[in-house]
């Protein structure tokens, strides 16, 4: 039995690429023949995968199974439509275009195209979301409820091993400040401006010995400029640091040095940084939006509307009230168990048995 996986790209450090490789590893372990195809294959992975053009030779193989990872518009969705194989769609979510309108029209158009194409991917045997939030979007796109399910992603194990950049750690600790952290691409749906404003109130009214670290790549010039202007206007130039993209070790160092993970995103399909914060024992204060409450489960602290005063005071309690902090962290550690690889593996196996790819 052959199983193929097709996606947009296979790139080091990318969560979906990692998920694809983990699935591949299990398929092989279960005695299946496994192939990976992607629009772009990084040089590191060329021994493991082929570019999507090579998938053409398998199109007319009705006994095979195709797993299509969909996270961004890619013309290779037509291969998914054309093939005679049985098909599983795994939807990793696409940011709604309105978040990019006014900032980057090309990106907005790409997201719009991606979401429009989702409707055309209905002809699958099973559609999986990596959260129930994503699964509901599949149902909204017209896929019958009974043909949908949830398969959480295999989290990169390398993210969940301790590692520290000693120089960076020394530098961070030397400041003796309370450190707020937010992680992810610096894009409008993450509402970094709200994180900055919450921090501004905390810094000005509660604790001036504090810093905010925004860790993630910056690539929308208009949005970056607006955030820089905001920081400037609020006179926070010495207290807010945009690190840009950092190495895995540096990222772990920020998690270990920080006192609070603050997340104000309006749209997340899953949100890996929340899981990373759980692993590193960092109390989480996050906006209750999209898949965030689902990923947190009973853990972390959520805010629904943005009353900066309350959120800033809550942040203060989470960093200063040791008892509350310990309770929150304990719940987070408990929640972390739900994302263990063996649970995801068991669910993948159950799905493949249901589709008669594996024997019961």
């Amino acid at each position, binding site marked *: 039995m052959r199983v193929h996986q097709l996606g947009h790209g296979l790139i080091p450090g990318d969560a979906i690429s990692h998920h694809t490789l983990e699935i591949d590893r299990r398929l092989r372990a279960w005695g299946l023949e496994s192939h990976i195809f992607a629009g772009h294959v990084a040089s590191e992975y060329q021994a493991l995968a082929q570019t999507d053009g090579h998938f053409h030779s398998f199109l007319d193989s009705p006994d095979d199974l195709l797993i299509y990872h969909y996270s961004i518009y890619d*013309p290779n969705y037509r291969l998914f439509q054309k093939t005679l194989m049985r098909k599983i769609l795994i939807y990793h979510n696409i940011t709604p275009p309105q978040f990019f309108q*006014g900032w980057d*029209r*090309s990106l*907005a*158009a790409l997201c719009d*195209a991606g979401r429009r194409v989702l409707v055309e991917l209905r002809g699958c045997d099973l559609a999986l979301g990596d959260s129930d939030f994503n699964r509901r979007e599949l149902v909204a796109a017209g896929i019958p409820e009974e043909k949908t399910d949830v398969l959480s992603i295999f989290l990169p194990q390398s993210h969940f091993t301790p590692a520290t950049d000693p120089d960076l750690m020394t530098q961070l600790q030397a400041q003796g400040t309370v450190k707020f952290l937010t992680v992810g691409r610096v894009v409008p749906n993450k509402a970094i401006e*709200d994180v900055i*404003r919450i921090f*501004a*109130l905390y810094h*000005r*009214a*509660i604790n001036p010995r504090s810093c905010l670290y925004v860790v993630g790549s910056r690539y929308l010039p*208009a949005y970056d400029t*607006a955030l820089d*202007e905001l920081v400037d*206007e*609020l006179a926070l130039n010495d207290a807010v640091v945009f690190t840009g993209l950092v190495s895995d070790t540096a990222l772990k160092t920020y998690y270990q040095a920080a006192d609070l993970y603050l997340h104000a995103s309006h749209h997340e399909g899953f949100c890996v940084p929340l899981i990373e914060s759980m692993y590193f024992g960092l109390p989480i204060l996050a906006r*209750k939006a999209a898949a965030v409450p689902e990923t947190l489960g*009973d853990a972390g*602290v*959520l*805010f*629904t*509307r*943005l*009353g*900066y*005063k*309350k959120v800033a*005071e*809550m942040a*203060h*309690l989470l960093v200063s009230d040791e008892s*509350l902090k310990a*309770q*929150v962290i304990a*719940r987070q550690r408990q929640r972390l168990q739900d994302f263990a690889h063996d649970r995801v593996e068991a669910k993948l196996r159950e799905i493949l048995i249901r589709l008669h790819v594996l024997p019961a």
Partner: protein
Amino acid sequence: MPDDDLTADLLKGDDIDAEAIMQEIRARIRARRAEAQSRGFDFEAYADGLYPLPPDAILSRDLYEAVRYVGLSYDKVNIDRVLTETRLPLIGGLVHRVRAALHELVLFYVNRQAARQIYFNEQAARALNALVRDLETEVCDLRARIADLEANQG
């Protein structure tokens, strides 16, 4: 946002007394506001997500916010080419190239208009800022004269 706008599920878990925590937060906010006022810190501006007022501000907060927004946005007219892929078989590539060329032509004229609009916006922003400065001077002057008159009457 009023202080009593609590979110019931802000904190979860039987071991956490959410109501007690929220009461504490409300009390802290009241204390913080009072303390901020005593040292001249614009607490409400930060709390409401507004920008701090200029130290010598004498007009309404809304006016300063609006002028600030005009100053930030007068030249933000983003125009670029956005073309969706055509799905016509065989001639799709040709159609795409023709559409792209037409878009470039349209953009040429739209950009000329945009440049004029930005020039106008800039002049309007300058005028607005000048008006606000004049108004501030006028208000200060009038307040001083009222104070003088009241002092003389007394």
